[in-house]
């Protein structure tokens, strides 16, 4: 992993907002240009620093949403009620405005095309962000690894990357995308809205299913699982995954914050 080979300090870099895209009524994607950016692996994050006129500054972590792409990178931020940093990033910052960031950070919650074998991504709320980077990286790299995304959002209006996900689900072979809604769903949904349940998650491969026998990834390698979201979501999802037969040591987690999502 390149993240683990890095030596020397992570410098603060100047980043400029190029453009932004509205994802939901309270979230947006920021496209930043960061001269000197060294590239990143899907799943890594940056530390963002905002400094006020009077010198006061605040730092927070944000996952990188985009696949590696020169000196550009995208973050997707959910505005948290009465938050200090996220409302600025979602509502106030204008194209041309600047912030500082450093990274990439995190050499554990990462995926690259060098990893063969099936992948299960489980995201809740803004926890979709680093998982989207993995999905985008898979497509960019032309990897054939089977990917299954289970994305939990409050309602269809709270889904990030709506069109792109639909497009990927339709066009990319080997990618399965399941959305589940916790508060309210769409007309005609088979699943009634509610928190993540065991049956929303695929069972571990290697389990004998009466119809087909052991599933494909059995001998080839166990499914790697990445879970990201608010702490309560990650706790619930990991316990359910273990119930579904996924060994604890294949599950990697990233916890974003106390509540919400």
């Amino acid at each position, binding site marked *: 992993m390149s993240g683990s080979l890095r*030596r*020397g300090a992570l410098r603060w870099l100047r980043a400029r907002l190029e453009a932004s895209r509205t994802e939901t009524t309270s979230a947006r994607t920021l496209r930043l240009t960061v001269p000197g950016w060294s590239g990143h692996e899907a799943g890594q994050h940056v530390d963002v620093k905002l400094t006020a006129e009077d010198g*006061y500054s*605040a730092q927070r972590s944000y996952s990188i949403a985009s696949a590696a792409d020169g000196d550009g990178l995208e973050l997707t931020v959910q505005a948290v009620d009465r938050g*200090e940093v996220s409302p600025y990033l979602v509502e106030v910052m*204008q194209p041309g405005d600047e912030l500082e960031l450093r990274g990439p950070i*995190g050499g554990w919650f990462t995926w690259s095309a060098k990893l063969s074998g099936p992948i299960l991504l489980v995201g809740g709320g803004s926890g979709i962000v680093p998982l989207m980077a993995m999905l985008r990286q898979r497509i960019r790299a032309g990897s054939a690894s089977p990917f299954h995304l289970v994305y939990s959002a409050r309602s269809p209006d709270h889904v990030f990357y709506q069109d792109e996900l639909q497009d990927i689900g339709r066009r990319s072979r080997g990618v399965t995308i399941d959305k589940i809604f916790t508060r309210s769903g769409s007309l005609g949904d088979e699943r009634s809205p509610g928190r993540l349940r065991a049956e929303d998650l695929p069972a571990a491969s290697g389990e004998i299913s009466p119809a087909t026998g052991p599933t494909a990834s059995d001998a080839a390698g166990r499914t790697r699982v990445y879970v990201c979201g608010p702490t309560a979501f990650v706790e619930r999802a990991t316990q359910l995954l273990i119930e579904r037969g996924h060994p604890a040591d294949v599950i990697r*987690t990233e916890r974003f914050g106390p509540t919400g999502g």
Partner: protein
Amino acid sequence: MSVISRGFGGRGSGSDPRVPPGQYVTDDFPVLSAGPTQYVDTEDWRFDITDIDGSRTTLTWERLMALPSEEFTVDIHCVTKWSKLGTTWRGVPVSSLLDGLGTEAEYALVHCYGGYSTNIPLEDLLDGKAWIVFEYDGGELDPVHGGPARLLVPHLYLWKSAKWVNGIELRLDEQLGFWESLGYHEYGDPWLEQRYIGD
């Protein structure tokens, strides 16, 4: 040179001398772990102390409970930027586990259920600077926060305060632990903002 983010005011909460640089205060108790929460029964709980000559002392839960413990209140600082002030814990000082050994070790590699590890200079674990804690805020320590027992080294970033601990490997040389091998700082002093390698 500092880059001003136009239109950012921040909470400008003033500078509380208890809060290290780059941190903010939270009343929540967020969680950082690399994988699933470990659930360990106290009946099965073991804690191995391995000295540099390979000799090993094993502690059961019963023996840990029989040791004198203390309640103390400290501030904690997570590398993901939150700090929590005035948290109250109960635990056994690490020095009372190690004092009898007369070890010549310089470093410790702390091991955990689930495979996590973290490295700490031995002197940072002694003299009332670190505890094996099993109570938080007057109640049993929740598995999400490292129960039944975690290390607490409040003067370093909280990833050093390993959850679900099951042993200390005493060493002459420093071997990097889990996050320390993945780009995080080998020591992790929040007052020097030692978050990542090279800070």
